[in-house]
């Protein structure tokens, strides 16, 4: 009889465990011109709410200092550059950011080039809601031949100037990632041990979701659902560049917001590039930046670029081809069995 009592207790307990309340705090906000999604595990709602508010306040601050087309410190700097005037009293933060993106521009052989704001402007992507345009190749060629690059930026103390007035800095490929790193720091300062932060698709993980790692889905670039999922360990970040995020179609051609600085035209044929970044001080920023050079690079140059930039885990989706690094292939799980049948799977490295 004792055994039967024991069974009943064991079974009741195991069901109870599945009904137990997990303390997961989730919130969604519209800041930074995108949607910010913060999940915090294992804290009281008040504590989670307080930490989230601190993060949102920081995002609003960054929005006002780094926005590419709404008046910000960055637009002020761009105005000074266009007028051939030095920009004085730049914040230490802005100077650090410019140094960092300049380093990344050089490391990526100028495939990631945040100085091409004029070209992005031409394509109309410097608006919340843009209009399709018929591109004029000769005009684009003129813009490209102005060779804007952060190499032309000079920093002296807190003064920033440029030897090329056509440099127009756009941190669209960096700011969201930088914000992730800031958010991660703020949450850790608030003693939050487990959180998942998603800013417009770029995600960083802190700790885990209860007794399992945070789980992240990767968007299918041609569908409305996730194509794959993976566990994102503590401190790791993930970022995707896709031709489906900001784009317009004209005469049956898709023009996306990812522009090749060497041609001045949007990249065509690549659907999406996802990079997975191992823990680092700037993991968030890297998750934002490093997908761009891979997206823009020619097929045959990808491997060299990935090696140069130390990108160890990536996933590239094109028409009927999915290329992944071996380590990435080990980590991700495709959600639909047909994905692997319909596409040719290439393992690189």
């Amino acid at each position, binding site marked *: 009889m004792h055994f039967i009592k024991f*069974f009943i207790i064991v*079974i009741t307990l195991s069901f109870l465990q599945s009904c137990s309340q997990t303390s997961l705090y989730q919130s969604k906000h519209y800041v930074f011109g995108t949607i910010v999604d913060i*999940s915090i595990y294992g804290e009281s709602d008040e504590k989670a709410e307080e930490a989230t508010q601190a993060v949102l306040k920081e995002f609003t601050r960054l929005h006002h200092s780094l926005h590419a087309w709404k008046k910000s410190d960055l637009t002020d700097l761009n105005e000074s550059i266009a007028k051939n005037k030095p920009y004085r009293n730049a914040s230490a933060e802005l100077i650090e950011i410019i140094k960092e993106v300049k380093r990344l521009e050089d490391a990526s052989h100028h495939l990631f080039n945040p100085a091409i704001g004029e070209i992005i402007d031409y394509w109309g992507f410097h608006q919340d809601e*843009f209009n399709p345009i018929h591109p004029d190749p000769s005009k684009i060629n003129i813009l490209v031949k102005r060779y804007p690059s952060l190499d032309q930026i000079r920093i002296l103390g807190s003064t920033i100037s440029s030897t090329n007035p056509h440099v127009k800095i756009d941190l669209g490929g960096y700011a969201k990632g930088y914000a992730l790193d800031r958010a991660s720091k703020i949450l850790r300062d608030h003693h939050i041990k487990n959180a998942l932060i998603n800013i417009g*698709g770029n995600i960083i993980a802190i700790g885990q979701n209860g007794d399992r790692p*945070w*789980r992240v889905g990767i968007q299918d670039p041609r569908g*409305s659902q996730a194509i794959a999922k993976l566990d994102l360990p503590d401190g790791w970040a993930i970022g995707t560049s896709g031709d489906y995020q900001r784009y317009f179609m004209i005469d049956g051609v898709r023009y996306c917001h990812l522009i090749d600085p060497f041609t001045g035209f949007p990249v065509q044929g690549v659907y999406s590039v996802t990079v997975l970044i191992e823990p680092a001080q700037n993991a968030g920023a890297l998750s934002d930046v490093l997908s761009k050079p891979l997206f823009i690079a020619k097929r045959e140059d990808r491997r060299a670029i990935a090696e140069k930039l130390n990108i160890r885990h990536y996933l590239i989706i094109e028409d009927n081809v999915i290329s992944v690094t071996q380590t990435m292939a080990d980590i991700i799980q495709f959600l639909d069995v047909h994905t692997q049948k319909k596409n040719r799977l290439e393992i690189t490295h």
Partner: protein
Amino acid sequence: MSTLRKKIVLKLRTKFFVGDSLIILISLIFIVFAFKAFWHFETGSVVQVNFQGNTYGNFSLFQDKKISLIGKEGESIIEIKEGRARFKSAPCKNQYCVQQGWIHFTGQMLICIPNEVSIEILGKSKAYDSLNY
């Protein structure tokens, strides 16, 4: 009942010892485990509407319903029909949310950033905590 069967029943009653108990215990644990591991609802049953950063409401997918939300840009209309949900119309220029069509799997999400509306399918099991896009 035949005498033979009576004998077997008696035998079973008298010889119910530790070994048998363990087998039953293990089987029951396995059943509970299997129940928890495989009892999933892949297609969601509820759509959560988020408006201007707050949850506007959770709506069953098994009804025909239109939800109108007036945001900064104008009116967004969400339609629920036959276990699915979509943006029927949106006031924004690029219309990404409308073009993505219907969603019905747990975890699927449509977002209209200009008008600050998003809809997400909720279910018992979510394949992931957040979406990278």
